[in-house]
């Protein structure tokens, strides 16, 4: 395999930092310092992505509703969300009488820890991967299911009926749609034969999983987008915080930074869903390459892998915003019908179809090894 020139990759920089640390510290301290550095980087990326997503969401929403959106702070209002962040940081955290104080304070941490844990396992680019377990996909599904406990506890400990109803709705919705999200990812695990993100990406070098598994992969992609969207409590599925019925759902009683935690994790969960979809279905950070077209591949590799990753994830996030601002809210019984009577049976059948296709060799890489094979 040809080695392409990759001028903008961060691999060399990372290797230089690694060498510098190993040259100056004992092995134990090197691991510790590296762990702290990676932690700081992940938290910083978390905040930056959330802030920019909030700005983008407001601008896109404004565009869909034919208005301007934030436009006073900075050029085109770009530092609006920074100002909002400072405001939320200095706001008072209001104490609630007759609320279960301990659980009330603990709840936002559950939500944010779950999304940080999932965020840490994402492959952002070549060698930009904090955790690469051999069960990567399963790990991601497992830790992201912790967030719902925070939402349930927040709703209950607020001692408020609206919060409680919001939390119950959210719990029912999350448990239902988690099944679909899990099954659609399993469909792709069957196709790529691995749960490790790095192997899944490597397997998509010449052909994305979306096309490699053709019909069942596309169905799985659609189902994953729908159920991922529902899991983040957004768009037409935002019943838990339906403001016309429940004021603000489970986070009605929260203020200041605690509310900020819920808000941040909502945006980050949207990013995580888009990033997982991009990694598993659209090749992740792997640039678009065509077998045999070496010059074309070289040009594609000039674009750094992290730019590919954020580009693909950004495209999917734009779809998510598009859906959110285009469809009216579903009713709760319709929402659960959609999952249990339509998505889940389709998904189970789809998984079987995928198994048959993989076993009988009808994937694109098996049919046309000269074009798409490894």
């Amino acid at each position: 395999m040809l080695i392409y020139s990759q001028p903008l990759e961060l691999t060399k920089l990372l290797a230089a930092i690694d060498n510098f640390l190993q040259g100056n510290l004992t092995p134990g301290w090197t691991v510790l310092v590296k762990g702290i550095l990676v932690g700081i980087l992940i938290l910083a990326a978390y905040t930056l992505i959330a802030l920019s997503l909030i700005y983008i969401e407001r601008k896109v929403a404004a565009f869909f509703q034919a208005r301007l959106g934030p436009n006073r702070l900075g050029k085109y209002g770009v530092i609006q969300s920074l100002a909002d962040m400072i405001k939320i940081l200095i706001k008072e955290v209001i104490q609630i009488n007759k609320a279960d104080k301990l659980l009330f304070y603990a709840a936002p941490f559950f939500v944010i820890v779950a999304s940080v844990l999932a965020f840490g396992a994402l492959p952002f680019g070549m060698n930009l991967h904090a955790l690469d377990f051999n069960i990567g996909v399963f790990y991601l599904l497992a830790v992201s299911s912790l967030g719902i406990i925070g939402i349930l506890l927040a709703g209950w400990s607020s001692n408020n009926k609206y919060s409680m109803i919001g939390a119950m709705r959210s719990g029912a919705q999350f448990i239902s749609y988690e099944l679909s999200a899990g099954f659609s990812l399993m469909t792709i695990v069957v196709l790529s034969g691995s749960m490790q993100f790095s192997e899944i990406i490597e397997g998509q070098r010449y052909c994305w999983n979306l096309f490699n598994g053709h019909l069942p992969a596309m169905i799985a992609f659609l189902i994953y987008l729908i159920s991922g969207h529902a899991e983040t409590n957004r768009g037409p599925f935002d019943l838990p915080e339906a403001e016309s019925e429940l004021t603000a759902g489970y986070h009605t009683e929260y203020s200041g930074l605690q509310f900020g935690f819920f808000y941040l994790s909502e945006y980050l969960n949207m990013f995580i869903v888009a990033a997982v979809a991009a990694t598993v279905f659209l090749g992740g950070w792997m640039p678009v390459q065509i077998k045999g077209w070496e010059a074309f591949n070289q040009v594609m590799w000039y674009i750094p892998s992290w730019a590919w990753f954020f580009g693909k994830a950004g495209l999917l996030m734009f779809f998510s915003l598009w859906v959110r601002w285009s469809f009216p809210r579903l009713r709760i019984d319709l929402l659960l019908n959609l999952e249990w009577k339509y998505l889940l049976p389709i998904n189970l059948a789809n998984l079987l179809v995928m198994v048959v296709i993989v076993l009988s060799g009808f994937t694109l890489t098996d049919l046309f090894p000269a074009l798409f094979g490894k």
Partner: protein
Amino acid sequence: MTEQIIFYLLAIVVTVFSILAVTSKRIVRSATYLLFVLLATAGLYMLLGYYFLFAVQVSVYAGGIMVLFIMAIFLTHKPGNNVSIKQGWRVRLSLLLSVAGLLLCGEIILNNTIGIVRFAGKEEPTMQQIGTAMLGTGKQQYLLSFEMMSILLLACIVGAILIARKTKTEKNEPNETEL
């Protein structure tokens, strides 16, 4: 060294929160403390380098069963009230039973340490190995038939609910406020 520190931290979390889970007077808090115990157990699996069991522990116990626990607690009558423990002999009996259980388990573990070391020292199995072990039909691979039986049980439960359910009448039933 580092592993030992992490192990003791996790062990302290498991012990403290186990005790808090049974002594807390609010049932939702008990559930939350139990969640911490389950998560720390998952941490122990991760310390052993067995990531598959870690993910299973987190997704099944922490993410699945605890959510159902908390939802079920919400459906009970006044879940926020403090529970008063009146019968002293019950507390003493359960304390005695749990100490006896601890001694029994400790005895078994102490006398079989070699076996545990042998299992823990193995390399982490690949996904393929786990998959064949779970869905295989060879020697000692009973999981598939076990799961089939659980599906049968689920069908029985659904059927029982369907038979036991009251049939809807055409008349409007009086709601709770009228009763």
